[in-house]
């Protein structure tokens, strides 16, 4: 057949179904197919979403009342560290990696990623890194004996992480597991860039690629530049802890602030790495359910690149209280405010896409609309935080926790759900239940707002982050109780999603190639696509090849 990737196994779907269980597992373990690996990444991410979500619910249970004795402080501190670390590296990263893995080759008319074996290598590195992190619950020992996961917070500030203050090896689990997953992510980034530059189908110039593919390109470049500072800082921390080096050893003249700079030079671009894919999903889903082309394609691409560039210059807005000079503080305030400009432009462009359209409120669109409102609010609380003196009150409080959960959950998880409902039919050939989907959406929306709207106010009333309890009489009781109830509601909503997925895999309505009447190349092939993606490599002339086919009297390439 046409195409240039090396496959040893070309089994049809029927052949697969006839293999014994071990054969099937073996198929998945040795696969280098971007679609399979994409599914494995997303499934793995959702698995850890459930685990880290349960950890969050335990945290909220403890904080529902003042001085609650549900968990002792040591356990709580491990919970908050593992919840944060897992949600960023074992949920956010793999889900975005998985979707890009699955969609990018399909959207550019390629048969696979540029380096399929590297793709598989990256996945298994991630997988083993994830296992290593949670293995710490069994194998780690810390200040309080064995069975101790890391408890230094997801950003692991020095010198708390130095041997003197973090005895045992629980911190080492944090370092090594994240180091592994980062190498895996770097491999994927290299793969996506090479694929995008070298494997587009005929007719697809860079400006004919879907916005999602542009965002995967920007995200990949950001990963290449932002992940190394974390790995470097972690290598330095390992040298401190094992070979007696002094990178962050303040007793020997080392600098605790240096860790913070290195971490946030990674950490800030990292959160844009996490959110840009959500923008990609929105830029594909909102047009389809508004029945309109994306408003301002070139501006969307330019804004995405601008966000990528500016986001590497804002990192010290996480450090406004550290004691930088007024000039330094002002610089980072300015860069942070500036990155809000292209971000806001994207919101306006999505609004422009909806405007004058014919909106269809299917489940992916419901999640996308909630995303728009929530991301707007999150961006505005971000502007509040960029005003340095205001940040001196708000930093390290529940206001910041609320702000970043508005992004991580309100923008990213909502769009991850939207993407799942939108592309599940393509991936599995079956539709997810619309009714269960609506229950999932409304419950999750209510729970999300119950929790995170109220936490803004807890922060403004003086509640700092990462505290295992608070005393009564501080005025924090009711706010925290409401927030905890919201967590329960979100948990129920996620349960409904799981039921929906399991049910639909068995008996969901058959989807067909193009259930949403969409316009990008992945909808031109079968659901699920064959292993080789396309029978013949597509040839395109505009950004919406299927629109051209469906509307030959009014094709896009006349207007682009």
């Amino acid at each position: 057949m046409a195409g240039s990737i090396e496959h040893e196994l070309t089994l049809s779907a029927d052949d697969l179904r006839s293999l014994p269980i071990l054969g099937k597992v073996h198929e998945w373990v040795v696969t280098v197919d971007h679609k399979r690996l994409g599914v494995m990444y997303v499934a793995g991410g959702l698995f850890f979403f459930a685990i880290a979500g349960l950890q969050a619910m335990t945290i909220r249970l403890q904080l529902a009342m003042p001085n609650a004795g549900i968990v002792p402080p040591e356990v709580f501190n491990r919970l908050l560290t593992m919840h944060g670390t897992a949600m960023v590296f074992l949920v956010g990263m793999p889900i975005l990696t998985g979707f890009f893995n699955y969609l990018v080759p399909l959207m550019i008319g390629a048969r696979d990623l540029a380096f399929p074996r590297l793709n598989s290598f990256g996945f298994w590195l991630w997988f083993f890194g994830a296992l290593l992190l949670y293995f710490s619950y069994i194998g780690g020992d810390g200040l309080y004996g064995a069975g101790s996961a890391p408890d230094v917070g997801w950003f692991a500030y020095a010198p708390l992480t130095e041997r003197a203050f973090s005895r045992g090896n629980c911190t080492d689990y944090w370092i090594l597991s994240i180091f592994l997953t980062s190498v895996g992510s770097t491999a994927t980034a290299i793969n996506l860039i090479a694929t995008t530059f070298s494997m587009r189908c005929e007719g697809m110039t860079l400006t004919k690629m879907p916005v999602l593919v542009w965002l995967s390109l920007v995200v990949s470049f950001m990963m290449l530049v932002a992940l190394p500072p974390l790995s470097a800082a972690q290598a330095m921390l390992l040298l401190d802890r094992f070979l007696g080096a002094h990178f962050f050893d303040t007793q020997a003249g080392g600098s605790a602030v240096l860790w913070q700079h290195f971490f946030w030079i990674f950490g800030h671009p990292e959160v844009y790495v996490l959110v840009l894919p959500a923008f990609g999903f929105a830029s594909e889903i909102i047009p389809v359910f508004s029945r309109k082309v994306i408003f301002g394609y070139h501006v969307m691409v330019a804004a995405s690149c601008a966000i990528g560039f500016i986001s590497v210059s804002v990192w010290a807005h996480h450090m406004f209280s550290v004691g930088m000079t007024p000039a330094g503080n002002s610089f980072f305030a300015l860069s942070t405010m500036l990155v809000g400009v292209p971000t806001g432009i994207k919101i306006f462009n999505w609004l422009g896409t909806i405007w004058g359209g014919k909106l269809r409120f299917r489940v992916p669109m419901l999640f996308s609309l909630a995303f728009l409102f929530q991301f707007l609010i999150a961006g505005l609380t971000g502007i509040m935080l960029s005003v340095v003196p205001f940040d001196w009150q708000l930093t390290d409080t529940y206001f910041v926790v609320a702000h970043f959960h508005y992004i991580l959950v309100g923008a990213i998880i909502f769009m991850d759900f939207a993407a799942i409902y939108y592309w599940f039919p393509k991936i599995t050939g079956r539709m997810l239940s619309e009714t269960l989907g609506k229950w999932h959406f409304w419950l999750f929306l209510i729970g999300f707002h119950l929790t995170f709207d109220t936490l803004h106010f807890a922060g403004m009333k003086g509640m700092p982050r990462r505290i295992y309890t608070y005393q009564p009489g501080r005025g924090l009781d009711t706010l925290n109780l409401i927030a905890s109830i919201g967590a329960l509601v979100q948990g129920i909503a996620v349960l409904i999603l799981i039921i929906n997925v399991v049910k639909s895999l068995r008996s969901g309505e058959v989807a067909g190639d193009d259930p949403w009447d969409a316009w990008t190349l992945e909808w031109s092939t079968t659901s699920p696509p064959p292993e080789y993606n396309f029978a013949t490599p597509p040839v395109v002339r505009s950004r919406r090849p299927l629109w051209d086919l469906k509307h030959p009297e009014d094709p896009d390439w006349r207007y682009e």
Partner: protein
Amino acid sequence: MTISLLAGTPIPAWANDWGMGDSNSKIPPSSIFNPVSTPAHEIDTVAFFVISITAVIFLIVAGLLAYSVIRFRTRPGDDGREPPQVYGSNPIEFAWTTVPVIIVFVLILVTARTIYVVQAAPRPPGALSVHVIAHQWWWEFRYPDLGIVTANELHVPLSDPHSPTPTFLDLESVDVAHSFWVPRLAGKTDVIPNKRNSMWIDPQVAGTYLGQCGEYCGTEHAMMLLRVIVEPRPDFDRWATAQKQPPVVDASASHGRAVFESTSCVNCHTISGTRADGRFGPDLTHLMARETIGAGVAMNTPAHLKVWVNDPSVMKPGALMPAMNLDDKDLDDLVTYLATLR
């Protein structure tokens, strides 16, 4: 267990709060929007400004979004034709780029001004100096000009807005990164080992202000609490004088003092005039002048002192002070002795 939905009404706690709930209830909540000191006032002003701007932006954009969601929904009986495809509009893109840039311009000017007003404030010659030293998980306060050493509760003089008498705090840490935060007085400033930071407050209303450590610093970060007691100058001077006195020597507590001086207490604590000169734990010379113990984890009563000395981890699990495991008689006498240290 009753649940009250009125904001601020305390909900009965499950675990023992060692009297702190009652004490905290008598103090107004530490809201950032209830400032009594110039840095906090400046922040409150700039906060109000930025909240107003973002509120307007929100109303406009969210309003347009809400409108479009309603106005452009597919009506029942729709003919299924695609709406007009609009690919973009340069004038609109220009407009909604320019307006945010202008807003950024205004915001950065206001922000920079407040940064300099707070951070670059000159230290007037009459300002009180306090050296704050953060430990895992308590606060040490040294007044170099007054020769006083105390812990966890910071006394400062009231400042008259017309002729301010600010207190300047120099912040240092002996171990890991912490952060000094009393919301009604100022924003938080981190306390980082091998780095000298400073901040200032000039509280204009007398009273007690609650705060706590604002940077995760280990197991008991949550209970590294702060109280700032602002008093009119005469009261402050009286307190300072009392702090400079040698400790009360009460003959009835002599056995307790003997227990203290012969146990490892002396390695960590200082009581001036005795052989105890340890620096690892708080100075106990005028212990009973403080409202709370354990950096705010319990009210300072003999009964609570007994629990603390016997085993601090009952009140503050993970605290670095070990359980002293004294027998009952020694423990009682020791507490009697501590209770004399006014």
